[in-house]
């Protein structure tokens, strides 16, 4: 039963990811006084792309076609780390946060290579910018997770979640507040959302992630798009699991899981709404202000780590 729930969690994350994306763009459209596309459009997009031909540049090698698969599979594995409905996950106990961060890095590394394999200047440009952002995002990402790990005395994601569930809801700890703030900033950079990167841009010169996938088409593009939707959802679920896990099922029964999924749905909806609001009210940062943005995240993460030691 536990195993089934764990598998169910991963499947939920993977299958609901495009919906999350569709809802975000729908809410954004409503805020901007547009009708907006249906929330099911990302599914239609992925299906359409899977039926299309895969166009490969003549100069590209096998890396070009390998990259989307690696990106997709690593994202799937990461999805198996995050508890969603109860305090456990498929790999949540054995896998720790270092593995999680570096699995994401593995996908990104291959995406960068795939982008450079196209042989155009845009791919290289996107890869170069992604290298900058990811280099600077990795340190605050690890440090913020580390501070929670130190506070919880465990490195496994599930362990941290269960520790937080045991804490009092109203006793806001400095560590959590700081680590949460740092992780939100990192998550925005990591998933390429607005102040850092604009996922809907059509202007090559302002792209980061989009410039990298410019050469991709058909099933490869479908894999990349789906993977980035999963990544967004997984990062949201990670934030919820680490910082507001209350409401997760403590026992594996149909009723508890039902309540837990309802609560989780509400939490994700709140995050989605917040993200849409932020994306509508903030302008994209200039490229060279991104380090400043991530510098703020680093400062918060460092402070979080120091606080864990001070608060003991």
């Amino acid at each position, binding site marked *: 039963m536990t195993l089934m729930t764990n598998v169910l969690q991963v499947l939920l994350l993977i299958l609901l990811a495009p919906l999350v994306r569709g809802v975000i763009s729908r809410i954004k459209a409503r805020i901007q006084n547009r009708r907006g596309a249906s929330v099911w459009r990302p599914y239609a997009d992925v299906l359409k792309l899977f039926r299309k031909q895969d166009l490969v540049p003549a100069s590209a090698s096998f890396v070009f076609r390998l990259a989307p698969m690696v990106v997709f599979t690593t994202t799937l594995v990461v999805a198996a780390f995050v508890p969603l409905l109860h305090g456990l996950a498929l790999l949540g106990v054995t896998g720790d946060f270092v593995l999680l961060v570096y699995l994401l890095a593995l996908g990104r590394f291959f995406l960068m290579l795939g982008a450079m394999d196209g042989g155009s200047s845009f791919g290289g440009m996107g890869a170069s910018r992604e290298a900058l952002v990811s280099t600077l995002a990795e340190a605050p990402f690890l440090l913020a997770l580390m501070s929670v790990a130190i506070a919880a005395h465990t490195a496994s994601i599930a362990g941290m979640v269960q520790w937080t569930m045991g804490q*009092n809801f109203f006793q806001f700890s400095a560590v959590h507040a700081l680590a949460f*703030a740092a992780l939100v900033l990192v998550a925005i950079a990591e998933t390429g959302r607005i102040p850092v990167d604009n996922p809907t841009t059509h202007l090559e010169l302002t792209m980061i992630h989009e410039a990298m996938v410019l050469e991709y088409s058909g099933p490869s593009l479908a894999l990349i798009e789906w993977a980035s939707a999963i990544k967004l959802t997984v990062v949201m679920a990670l934030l919820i699991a680490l910082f507001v896990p209350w409401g997760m099922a403590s026992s594996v029964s149909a009723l508890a899981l039902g309540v837990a999924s309802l609560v989780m749905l509400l939490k994700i909806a709140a995050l989605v709404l917040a993200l849409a609001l932020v994306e509508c009210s903030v302008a994209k940062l200039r490229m060279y202000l991104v380090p*400043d943005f991530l510098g703020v995240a680093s400062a918060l993460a460092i402070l979080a780590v120091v606080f864990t030691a*001070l608060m003991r």
Partner: protein
Amino acid sequence: MGLFETAAAKALASSGVFLFMTVLLIAAAKRISTCIALFSVQSLIITAQIIAVSRMHHSTEGFVIAGLVLSVKVIAIPYVLYRIVEELKAPRDVSSSTSSSQSVFIAAGLILLSFFAVRPYVGVLGGDQAMLAAAVALVLTGGFLMVSRKKALMQVVGLLVLDNGIFLAALTTTFGMPLVIEIGIVFDLLMGVFLMGLFVFRIRDTFDHLDVSKLRRLRG
């Protein structure tokens, strides 16, 4: 004690954390209006603390002070500052001499410094360590804001943050100053802000900018 009171007590115990967050956010903010809003939030947190403390000590004076702080620091002063920003039609950025990530690093350093600074006195003075550290940190970052921001208005905001720190220190160590002094301080601040607003307008009219770093004529 009901559920609500337990929750309130717990939240109060960790409200120092929220003060730290406002400090860091003010350091990171790039617009004057954001800083003003954050100052308002900060004062609101302090108001909540005053109410909680006076409830614990069953003092009616405390409620008066809370009402005073609420009306002046949370509503009146931010409103006046907003109006000044609107009327000035000057550029809205804080034009800091340090980048926002550097500012956050410095503010973080100041918070840690204040933690180490109050550590020996917690036992003597009583009160919560986080709260006392928050008070010192507010004073320090207020000073830092005044030093590093070039706009005259930001000096006012820095001063207000500093004053919040002093107020909080008094609250945590001696459960607030006598009512008369509190009233005096609060009105003093209000007048100060009005005066500073006037000065800001005069500076703008005379020099066509608000950049304090360019006001050097005074030196002999």
